[in-house]
């Protein structure tokens, strides 16, 4: 069975590219373009893993993590932050809220992101 992944990214170009690449890697892909849609999609689709941006419209990445962690049904889904931020305070904040790990967008190729997703899924 294909693993279900929720991609939360407001930049349409990045979202589409990620979705297409992960789809070709045999993931079942769901996408969301803002924080509210992300929470809705997580609750309704129960993904195996979430790829989450921090700067998002409506609700930011931190708020999304908080809401997810409050919900018994989805609180254990691993969350990988995929962000362009990368300052110590941003990352510590996200990890303290319960994100599993973080990747700085520009530093990782798509194939490396897939590798990290697979690693996280094995651990989780």
């Amino acid at each position, binding site marked *: 069975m294909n693993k279900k992944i929720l991609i939360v990214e407001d*930049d349409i*170009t*990045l979202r589409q*590219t*990620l979705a*297409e*690449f992960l789809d*070709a890697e045999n993931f079942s892909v769901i996408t969301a373009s803002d924080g509210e849609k992300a929470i809705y999609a997580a609750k309704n689709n129960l993904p195996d893993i979430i790829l989450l941006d921090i700067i998002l419209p409506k609700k930011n990445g931190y708020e999304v993590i908080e809401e997810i962690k409050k919900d018994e049904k989805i609180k254990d889904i691993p969350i990988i932050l995929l962000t*362009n*931020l*990368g*300052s*110590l*305070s*941003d*990352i510590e904040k996200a990890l303290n809220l319960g994100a599993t790990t*973080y990747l*700085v*967008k*520009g*530093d*990782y*190729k*798509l*194939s490396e992101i897939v590798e990290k997703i697979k690693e996280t899924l094995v651990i989780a």
Partner: protein
Amino acid sequence: MRIKNDLNIRRQARNLGISVWQAPSFLFMIMAFIIIVLMTVVFYISRNQASPEYLIVAEVAVVVIILSIGNVIITNMEKMAQINKMKSEFVSIVSHQLKTPLTGIGWDIELMLANYKKGLSKKQLEIMEKINESNAIMTRMVNDLLDVARIDQGDLSLKKEKINMKELIDKVVEKNKELAEYSNIDIVVDKIRSDLEIISDEKKMEVVLDNLVSNAIKYNKIDGKVFVTVKEDDKKAKFCVKDEGIGIPENERGRLFEKFYRGQGASNKGINGTGLGLYIAKNIVEQSEGSMSYKSIEGKGSEFCFQVPTV
């Protein structure tokens, strides 16, 4: 900038991008010293001649004059710090904004080459590879600027993850192969224990190694060799990259790790670079609880090493 709260002279100087002698704490010390000296001088000159009132007025005048001058200097320092901070923040914001489209270009090329390669002609493929290379260079420059801005703001974030150094070194050497082949340079890698691990940020450590290896290629002689060696010693490992190139002139050695500093030889030979690589590498290594060092003989070559704790 934490000038008023931070009395560490070296840190102040680094934060402000000025020399130690210009740091506000140092200037305060100089001011205090001048006040004491002048007060003593005034006291000795006037003790036999003037009335006590005159002495008090003269001493107060000394203190007021020196404090006023000092205040002007230190206020200027604060302004400079402010401008420096704004500059760092500006670079940081611009780099962030540039990163999203650059990431988009990189990912789309990767997607194209991974999934649609079959539909491309040889020429189209060649052009895609070229776009990819240029994009990688631009991404690296933006990353360097962002790293420097973060270092200046004291906010360079390093992950703490286990890194297999053999795998990482192999990856960096592979990445630099084409550059080496261009100048017919051979990269010789020491035998490395396959389970040698350190704790740091993998992407940042890759930046350090990539910097040293690509420098060793760029500053090498044609047909030269690059040696990558590892020495382990009681919970520490020392990684060295040695070249057979132009070496570093004596008078440039003190400034090697300064930001934006480029040696005369590099500029004369037309070697590309921003002068940020070693500055960033040193900061990453130091934040990984390690240290960086180098040896160089002019005309014979240089060796850059960093030592970090192993797992």
